[in-house]
């Protein structure tokens, strides 16, 4: 209950402040956001798009951790948790891809450019897609759980290679990526004013809570469904 209230307050605050605060070239008071050259009003997406992408990665890792847990203990509940996390991750991955594509149309001129981060999220989408195709292909529950767990661990182990590969193949378009005329580095450090940072980090916390809340709901629903099926 406390989580739900905190989540409601935080998300409302982030939405109202993120969209509502005025932007000015030379911020005077605490409520004015600075104008970032080249981004202007479009900079507001960072309060929503980045946390969505962050969640899809958190969900991916959560799914992998429960997959490891399943292989160690063989408790069906861990597989339910692992697939619930993956389902949420898939959803947030699609949301991050769509919001990013719309933003890219207005900022870079086309919906898709194969920027390193676009490529990485595309790979994440493919992995989630493959994971759920594998799950739907196996009918025996225990076998499905084992094979899906193994696959998600293998996928999680190979994904970090993109960190090394991407910069060798292409330069980035994202703000703060290598090749940004304003300099490379985390955007939070050199482009965001303190008030933007407060909203941004509140949004990260809010989205993480949102994930936690949706995750427990899904696990409970899946558990009830499993009970219901075995009861008949």
């Amino acid at each position, binding site marked *: 209950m406390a989580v739900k209230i905190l989540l409601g307050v935080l998300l409302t605050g982030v939405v109202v402040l993120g969209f509502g605060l005025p932007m000015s070239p030379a911020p005077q008071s605490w409520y004015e956001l600075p104008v970032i050259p080249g981004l202007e009003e479009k900079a507001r997406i960072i309060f929503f798009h980045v946390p969505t992408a962050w969640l899809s990665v958190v969900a991916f890792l959560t799914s992998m951790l429960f997959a490891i847990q399943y292989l160690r203990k063989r408790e069906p509940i861990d597989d339910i948790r692992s697939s619930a996390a993956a389902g949420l991750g898939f959803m947030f991955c699609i949301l991050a891809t769509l919001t990013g594509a719309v933003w890219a149309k207005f900022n870079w001129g086309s919906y898709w450019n194969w920027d390193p981060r676009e490529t990485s999220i595309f*790979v994440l989408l493919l992995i989630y897609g493959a994971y759920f195709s*594998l799950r739907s292909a196996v009918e025996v529950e225990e076998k499905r759980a084992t094979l899906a767990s193994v696959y998600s*661990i293998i996928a999680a182990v190979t994904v970090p290679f993109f960190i090394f*590969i991407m910069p*060798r193949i292409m330069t980035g378009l994202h703000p703060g990526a290598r090749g940004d005329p304003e300099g490379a580095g985390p955007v939070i450090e050199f482009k965001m004013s303190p008030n933007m940072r407060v909203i941004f980090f509140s949004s990260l916390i809010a989205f993480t809570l949102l994930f936690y809340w949706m995750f427990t709901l899904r696990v409970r629903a899946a558990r009830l469904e499993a009970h219901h099926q075995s009861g008949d």
Partner: protein
Amino acid sequence: MSGAEMTPGRFLRSVLAIFLKDWRSELRTRYAISALLMFVITTIAIILFSLGSEGAPADALSGMLWVVIFFGAMSGLSRTFVMEEERGTTLTLQLLAPASAVYFGKLLFNLVLVLGLNAVTVLLYAGFIAGFVIRNVPVFLITVLLGSLGFAAAATVIAAIIARANTRGTLYPVLSFPIMLPLLLTVINATRLASEGAFFQEAAGEFQILVSYIVVVVAISYMLFEYIWKD
């Protein structure tokens, strides 16, 4: 498990025995070899027909080589595990040999297949596609060798998964592609460098990525194989 009391010598012998068993049964039917060979010939013929008399840029050609190899590998490499399921010999093998010996035996078999596949593909590709020129041959050979190892490593563990999932062919490329993408992007980049005549030092970064990819994939497959293999 008998795996605990295994000496390195006995372990190597059972790896070799599994490899030889697969190799002999392959020679009897020549299923995988002929599938791979026909696949490569057909694909290169399609590329030749679609290019017509026009050439393609060297970048595109070095990428296309690995498209042929990727789908070639996908057409033949699942055979070694699917065959055990089809013949119903999985259970016997589970009883006779430790899981890790089965894994390394199958890995060795797939490695030999991929090396053969790549040798034939590269020869045909370089022979028939005029625009494909390699200016630094050693860099290219190292790329093909490391690429083959990487392909065999990733393809073997995914083949084990799909054989257990009883889905046969359709899921194989779907599951393999995201796992192999780091490998594919790196070998394509290294092949491009080799065709431009880059020095070894320039491609060294690519080779480091390939070697670490192979080590990581083989290690994680070795650790997880028992879960896939045992019921």
